[in-house]
Protein backbone atom coordinates (compact mmCIF):
# COMPACT_ATOMS: atom_id res chain seq x y z
CA UNK A 1 0.00 0.00 0.00
CA UNK A 2 1.36 3.36 -0.96
CA UNK A 3 1.97 5.75 1.85
CA UNK A 4 -0.24 8.75 1.58
CA UNK A 5 1.57 12.06 1.83
CA UNK A 6 0.06 14.76 4.02
CA UNK A 7 -1.93 17.24 2.01
CA UNK A 8 -0.30 20.60 1.56
CA UNK A 9 -1.84 23.47 3.45
CA UNK A 10 -3.03 26.22 1.21
CA UNK A 11 -1.06 29.32 2.00
CA UNK A 12 -2.99 31.55 -0.35
CA UNK A 13 -4.76 33.42 2.43
CA UNK A 14 -1.55 34.26 4.25
CA UNK A 15 -1.29 37.52 2.32
CA UNK A 16 -4.80 38.47 3.41
CA UNK A 17 -4.02 37.89 7.05
CA UNK A 18 -0.80 39.84 6.81
CA UNK A 19 -2.61 42.67 5.04
CA UNK A 20 -5.15 42.81 7.80
CA UNK A 21 -2.46 43.18 10.44
CA UNK A 22 -0.56 45.67 8.31
CA UNK A 23 -3.59 47.88 7.91
CA UNK A 24 -4.27 47.74 11.63
CA UNK A 25 -0.76 48.93 12.44
CA UNK A 26 -0.83 51.53 9.69
CA UNK A 27 -3.94 53.06 11.19
CA UNK A 28 -2.80 52.98 14.80
CA UNK A 29 0.72 54.24 14.22
CA UNK A 30 1.54 57.72 15.36
CA UNK A 31 5.21 58.41 15.24
CA UNK A 32 5.68 60.42 18.40
CA UNK A 33 7.78 63.51 18.37
CA UNK A 34 10.42 63.36 21.02
CA UNK A 35 12.61 66.31 20.28
CA UNK A 36 12.42 69.81 21.60
CA UNK A 37 14.10 72.74 23.27
CA UNK A 38 15.29 71.89 26.75
CA UNK A 39 14.98 74.69 29.25
CA UNK A 40 15.40 75.09 32.95
CA UNK A 41 13.04 77.19 35.00
CA UNK A 42 14.42 79.36 37.77
CA UNK A 43 13.56 78.11 41.26
CA UNK A 44 11.03 79.99 43.34
CA UNK A 45 12.85 82.17 45.78
CA UNK A 46 11.72 84.39 48.57
CA UNK A 47 12.41 88.03 47.89
CA UNK A 48 16.09 88.07 47.21
CA UNK A 49 17.56 91.42 46.33
CA UNK A 50 18.18 91.31 42.62
CA UNK A 51 21.85 91.62 41.81
CA UNK A 52 22.84 94.89 40.24
CA UNK A 53 23.61 94.37 36.60
CA UNK A 54 24.92 97.02 34.30
CA UNK A 55 22.49 98.01 31.62
CA UNK A 56 24.95 97.28 28.86
CA UNK A 57 25.24 93.69 30.01
CA UNK A 58 21.55 93.07 29.44
CA UNK A 59 20.16 92.28 26.03
CA UNK A 60 16.45 92.90 26.24
CA UNK A 61 14.13 91.05 23.92
CA UNK A 62 10.48 92.02 24.09
CA UNK A 63 7.64 90.22 22.36
CA UNK A 64 4.33 92.02 22.36
CA UNK A 65 0.81 90.71 21.94
CA UNK A 66 0.92 91.32 18.21
CA UNK A 67 4.01 89.12 17.85
CA UNK A 68 6.26 92.09 17.17
CA UNK A 69 9.82 91.91 18.33
CA UNK A 70 11.58 94.73 20.14
CA UNK A 71 15.28 94.20 20.70
CA UNK A 72 17.22 96.78 22.70
CA UNK A 73 14.43 99.32 22.09
CA UNK A 74 14.43 98.76 18.35
CA UNK A 75 11.99 96.89 16.17
CA UNK A 76 13.54 93.82 14.61
CA UNK A 77 12.62 90.89 12.40
CA UNK A 78 13.09 87.46 13.93
CA UNK A 79 15.52 86.46 11.21
CA UNK A 80 17.94 89.20 12.34
CA UNK A 81 17.76 88.24 16.00
CA UNK A 82 20.38 85.52 15.87
CA UNK A 83 23.08 87.79 14.44
CA UNK A 84 22.24 90.55 16.94
CA UNK A 85 22.45 88.14 19.87
CA UNK A 86 25.77 86.73 18.67
CA UNK A 87 27.21 90.22 18.34
CA UNK A 88 26.08 91.06 21.86
CA UNK A 89 27.43 87.87 23.47
CA UNK A 90 30.69 87.93 21.60
CA UNK A 91 31.36 91.63 22.15
CA UNK A 92 34.05 91.35 24.86
CA UNK A 93 33.82 94.96 26.07
CA UNK A 94 36.38 94.66 28.91
CA UNK A 95 38.84 92.53 26.93
CA UNK A 96 39.03 89.70 29.48
CA UNK A 97 37.67 87.11 27.08
CA UNK A 98 40.57 85.74 25.08
CA UNK A 99 38.51 83.59 22.75
CA UNK A 100 35.97 86.25 21.73
CA UNK A 101 36.12 87.87 18.34
CA UNK A 102 33.72 90.74 18.99
CA UNK A 103 34.29 94.42 18.24
CA UNK A 104 34.97 95.39 21.92
CA UNK A 105 32.24 97.96 21.79
CA UNK A 106 32.11 99.77 25.14
CA UNK A 107 28.35 100.17 25.01
CA UNK A 108 27.71 96.43 24.69
CA UNK A 109 28.41 93.44 26.95
CA UNK A 110 31.62 93.08 29.01
CA UNK A 111 32.23 89.38 28.41
CA UNK A 112 30.13 86.26 27.73
CA UNK A 113 30.05 85.41 31.43
CA UNK A 114 28.38 88.71 32.31
CA UNK A 115 26.13 88.97 29.28
CA UNK A 116 22.52 88.22 30.04
CA UNK A 117 19.68 87.91 27.60
CA UNK A 118 16.37 88.94 29.06
CA UNK A 119 13.23 87.74 27.33
CA UNK A 120 9.85 89.19 28.08
CA UNK A 121 6.60 88.21 26.46
CA UNK A 122 2.98 89.24 26.70
CA UNK A 123 0.09 86.97 27.55
CA UNK A 124 -1.20 87.40 24.02
CA UNK A 125 2.06 86.46 22.32
CA UNK A 126 1.55 83.37 20.21
CA UNK A 127 3.40 80.23 21.20
CA UNK A 128 4.77 79.74 17.68
CA UNK A 129 6.53 83.12 17.78
CA UNK A 130 7.82 82.49 21.26
CA UNK A 131 9.35 79.18 20.17
CA UNK A 132 10.92 80.85 17.14
CA UNK A 133 12.54 83.47 19.37
CA UNK A 134 13.73 80.85 21.86
CA UNK A 135 15.11 78.86 18.96
CA UNK A 136 17.05 81.82 17.59
CA UNK A 137 18.50 82.64 21.00
CA UNK A 138 19.57 79.03 21.57
CA UNK A 139 21.00 79.10 18.04
CA UNK A 140 23.09 82.15 18.92
CA UNK A 141 24.65 80.31 21.86
CA UNK A 142 25.14 77.22 19.74
CA UNK A 143 26.92 79.16 17.00
CA UNK A 144 29.42 80.57 19.50
CA UNK A 145 29.85 77.23 21.26
CA UNK A 146 30.36 75.46 17.94
CA UNK A 147 33.03 77.96 16.99
CA UNK A 148 34.77 77.45 20.32
CA UNK A 149 34.47 73.67 20.04
CA UNK A 150 36.30 73.69 16.71
CA UNK A 151 39.14 75.62 18.42
CA UNK A 152 39.32 73.59 21.64
CA UNK A 153 38.48 70.19 20.19
CA UNK A 154 41.66 69.48 18.19
CA UNK A 155 43.87 70.12 21.24
CA UNK A 156 41.98 67.41 23.08
CA UNK A 157 41.82 64.95 20.26
CA UNK A 158 38.34 65.70 18.94
CA UNK A 159 38.90 67.11 15.49
CA UNK A 160 36.12 68.31 13.22
CA UNK A 161 33.50 68.03 15.89
CA UNK A 162 31.36 71.00 16.81
CA UNK A 163 29.61 71.50 20.11
CA UNK A 164 26.29 70.05 19.02
CA UNK A 165 28.01 66.95 17.65
CA UNK A 166 30.04 66.63 20.86
CA UNK A 167 26.87 66.59 22.92
CA UNK A 168 25.29 64.09 20.57
CA UNK A 169 28.34 61.84 20.73
CA UNK A 170 28.45 62.06 24.48
CA UNK A 171 24.91 60.69 24.68
CA UNK A 172 25.56 58.08 22.00
CA UNK A 173 26.38 54.70 23.51
CA UNK A 174 28.16 53.60 20.34
CA UNK A 175 30.65 56.48 20.41
CA UNK A 176 34.21 55.21 20.43
CA UNK A 177 36.52 57.60 22.19
CA UNK A 178 37.35 59.06 25.53
CA UNK A 179 34.01 60.06 27.02
CA UNK A 180 35.33 61.56 30.23
CA UNK A 181 37.59 63.81 28.23
CA UNK A 182 34.70 64.73 25.95
CA UNK A 183 32.60 65.65 28.98
CA UNK A 184 35.42 67.89 30.22
CA UNK A 185 35.59 69.69 26.89
CA UNK A 186 31.81 70.12 26.82
CA UNK A 187 31.80 71.52 30.34
CA UNK A 188 34.68 73.85 29.56
CA UNK A 189 32.80 75.30 26.59
CA UNK A 190 29.64 75.58 28.64
CA UNK A 191 31.55 77.62 31.21
CA UNK A 192 33.14 79.80 28.55
CA UNK A 193 29.82 80.57 26.90
CA UNK A 194 27.26 80.14 29.69
CA UNK A 195 23.62 80.23 28.69
CA UNK A 196 22.23 83.10 30.69
CA UNK A 197 18.73 83.52 29.44
CA UNK A 198 16.35 85.02 31.90
CA UNK A 199 12.63 85.26 31.43
CA UNK A 200 10.71 88.07 32.99
CA UNK A 201 7.42 87.18 34.58
Amino acid at each position, binding site marked *: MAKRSAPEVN*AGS*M*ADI*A*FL*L*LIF*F*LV*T*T*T*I*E*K*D*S*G*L*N*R*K*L*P*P*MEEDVDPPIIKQRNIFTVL*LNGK*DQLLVEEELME*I*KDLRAAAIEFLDNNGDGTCTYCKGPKNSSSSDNPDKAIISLK*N*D*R*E*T*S*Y*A*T*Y*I*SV*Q*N*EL*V*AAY*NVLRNRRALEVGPQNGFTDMNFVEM*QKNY*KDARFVGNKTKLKEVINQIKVEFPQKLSEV*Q
Partner: protein
Amino acid sequence: MSKFKKKSDGGTPAISTASLPDIVFMLLFFFMVATVMRENSLKIKNSLPVANQVEKLDKKNPVSYIYMGKPSAGYEKFGTESRIQLNDQFAELSEVGAFIGAERAALREELIPFLTVALKVDKDANMGIVGDVKQELRKVNALKINYTTGVGDALNNIK
Protein backbone atom coordinates in the same frame (compact mmCIF):
# COMPACT_ATOMS: atom_id res chain seq x y z
CA MET B 1 -8.56 13.25 -30.14
CA SER B 2 -5.65 14.46 -32.00
CA LYS B 3 -2.29 13.14 -31.25
CA PHE B 4 -0.65 16.43 -31.41
CA LYS B 5 -2.39 18.65 -28.90
CA LYS B 6 -2.16 22.21 -29.87
CA LYS B 7 -0.17 24.09 -27.32
CA SER B 8 -2.39 26.62 -25.71
CA ASP B 9 -0.83 30.03 -25.93
CA GLY B 10 -2.71 31.88 -23.28
CA GLY B 11 -0.81 35.11 -23.82
CA THR B 12 1.44 36.28 -20.99
CA PRO B 13 1.94 33.90 -18.08
CA ALA B 14 0.42 34.87 -14.74
CA ILE B 15 2.71 36.74 -12.38
CA SER B 16 3.54 34.67 -9.35
CA THR B 17 2.13 36.16 -6.18
CA ALA B 18 4.01 33.78 -3.95
CA SER B 19 6.29 36.54 -2.67
CA LEU B 20 3.44 38.89 -1.87
CA PRO B 21 3.14 37.66 1.74
CA ASP B 22 6.84 38.29 2.21
CA ILE B 23 6.55 41.86 1.05
CA VAL B 24 3.51 42.48 3.19
CA PHE B 25 5.18 40.90 6.21
CA MET B 26 8.19 43.14 5.72
CA LEU B 27 5.97 46.23 5.82
CA LEU B 28 4.06 44.79 8.73
CA PHE B 29 7.20 44.32 10.79
CA PHE B 30 8.35 47.83 9.99
CA PHE B 31 5.14 49.33 11.29
CA MET B 32 5.06 47.04 14.30
CA VAL B 33 8.52 48.18 15.29
CA ALA B 34 7.90 51.86 14.57
CA THR B 35 4.56 52.01 16.35
CA VAL B 36 4.31 53.75 19.66
CA MET B 37 0.90 53.33 21.16
CA ARG B 38 -0.48 56.70 22.12
CA GLU B 39 -0.38 57.25 25.83
CA ASN B 40 -3.18 59.73 25.92
CA SER B 41 -5.97 60.36 23.49
CA LEU B 42 -5.97 64.05 22.77
CA LYS B 43 -9.03 66.17 23.20
CA ILE B 44 -7.28 69.28 21.99
CA LYS B 45 -5.78 70.52 18.78
CA ASN B 46 -2.09 69.81 19.03
CA SER B 47 0.01 70.75 16.05
CA LEU B 48 3.43 71.55 17.37
CA PRO B 49 5.65 74.38 16.14
CA VAL B 50 9.00 73.60 14.58
CA ALA B 51 12.53 74.53 15.62
CA ASN B 52 15.98 73.55 14.42
CA GLN B 53 18.11 73.79 17.56
CA VAL B 54 16.39 70.80 19.10
CA GLU B 55 17.79 68.21 21.42
CA LYS B 56 16.44 64.73 21.71
CA LEU B 57 14.29 64.14 24.73
CA ASP B 58 16.19 61.73 26.89
CA LYS B 59 13.91 58.73 27.33
CA LYS B 60 16.14 57.23 29.96
CA ASN B 61 14.82 59.81 32.37
CA PRO B 62 11.15 59.93 33.28
CA VAL B 63 9.00 62.28 31.23
CA SER B 64 5.60 63.72 32.03
CA TYR B 65 3.51 65.33 29.33
CA ILE B 66 1.33 68.39 29.63
CA TYR B 67 -0.77 69.22 26.59
CA MET B 68 -2.20 72.61 25.77
CA GLY B 69 -4.34 73.80 22.92
CA LYS B 70 -7.82 74.68 21.79
CA PRO B 71 -10.47 71.98 22.33
CA SER B 72 -10.81 70.00 19.12
CA ALA B 73 -13.98 69.18 17.19
CA GLY B 74 -16.49 67.41 19.39
CA TYR B 75 -15.35 69.19 22.53
CA GLU B 76 -16.59 72.65 21.65
CA LYS B 77 -18.57 72.80 24.87
CA PHE B 78 -15.28 73.38 26.64
CA GLY B 79 -14.94 76.70 24.87
CA THR B 80 -12.66 78.07 22.22
CA GLU B 81 -9.88 79.25 24.49
CA SER B 82 -6.75 77.12 24.93
CA ARG B 83 -7.08 74.53 27.66
CA ILE B 84 -4.73 72.26 29.56
CA GLN B 85 -4.98 68.51 29.18
CA LEU B 86 -3.45 66.19 31.74
CA ASN B 87 -3.59 62.46 31.07
CA ASP B 88 -6.94 61.92 29.38
CA GLN B 89 -8.96 64.88 30.48
CA PHE B 90 -9.18 68.62 30.58
CA ALA B 91 -7.72 70.14 33.68
CA GLU B 92 -7.66 73.42 35.50
CA LEU B 93 -4.46 75.30 36.16
CA SER B 94 -4.65 74.43 39.86
CA GLU B 95 -4.46 70.72 39.05
CA VAL B 96 -1.01 70.96 37.49
CA GLY B 97 0.74 70.84 40.85
CA ALA B 98 -1.22 67.78 41.94
CA PHE B 99 -0.50 66.11 38.59
CA ILE B 100 3.25 66.53 39.04
CA GLY B 101 2.90 65.19 42.58
CA ALA B 102 1.11 62.12 41.27
CA GLU B 103 3.72 61.59 38.55
CA ARG B 104 6.47 61.80 41.13
CA ALA B 105 4.72 59.38 43.46
CA ALA B 106 4.76 56.79 40.69
CA LEU B 107 8.52 57.05 40.27
CA ARG B 108 11.39 55.42 42.05
CA GLU B 109 12.84 57.86 44.50
CA GLU B 110 16.24 58.21 42.88
CA LEU B 111 14.65 59.22 39.59
CA ILE B 112 12.51 62.03 40.97
CA PRO B 113 15.07 64.83 40.43
CA PHE B 114 15.40 63.81 36.78
CA LEU B 115 11.73 64.16 35.95
CA THR B 116 11.36 66.24 32.80
CA VAL B 117 8.09 67.92 31.97
CA ALA B 118 7.46 68.00 28.25
CA LEU B 119 5.13 70.79 27.22
CA LYS B 120 3.27 69.88 24.07
CA VAL B 121 1.66 73.14 23.14
CA ASP B 122 -0.31 73.91 20.03
CA LYS B 123 1.27 76.61 17.96
CA ASP B 124 -1.87 78.72 17.97
CA ALA B 125 -2.01 78.84 21.76
CA ASN B 126 -0.92 82.05 23.39
CA MET B 127 1.78 82.50 25.96
CA GLY B 128 -0.59 83.40 28.78
CA ILE B 129 -1.55 79.81 29.52
CA VAL B 130 2.01 78.57 28.98
CA GLY B 131 3.34 81.19 31.39
CA ASP B 132 0.75 80.19 33.99
CA VAL B 133 1.71 76.53 33.71
CA LYS B 134 5.38 77.40 33.99
CA GLN B 135 4.62 79.35 37.15
CA GLU B 136 2.75 76.35 38.59
CA LEU B 137 5.70 74.10 37.75
CA ARG B 138 8.04 76.44 39.55
CA LYS B 139 5.81 76.28 42.62
CA VAL B 140 6.16 72.49 42.79
CA ASN B 141 9.85 72.71 41.91
CA ALA B 142 9.59 70.85 38.61
CA LEU B 143 12.20 72.91 36.83
CA LYS B 144 13.36 70.72 33.98
CA ILE B 145 11.10 71.43 31.05
CA ASN B 146 11.15 70.69 27.38
CA TYR B 147 9.17 72.53 24.74
CA THR B 148 8.41 69.67 22.38
CA THR B 149 8.69 70.78 18.78
CA GLY B 150 8.99 69.28 15.36
CA VAL B 151 12.16 69.67 13.38
CA GLY B 152 12.23 72.37 10.74
CA ASP B 153 13.05 75.98 10.08
CA ALA B 154 11.76 78.04 12.98
CA LEU B 155 11.05 81.01 10.76
CA ASN B 156 8.26 78.99 9.13
CA ASN B 157 6.25 79.21 12.33
CA ILE B 158 5.20 82.75 11.63
CA LYS B 159 3.02 83.18 8.65
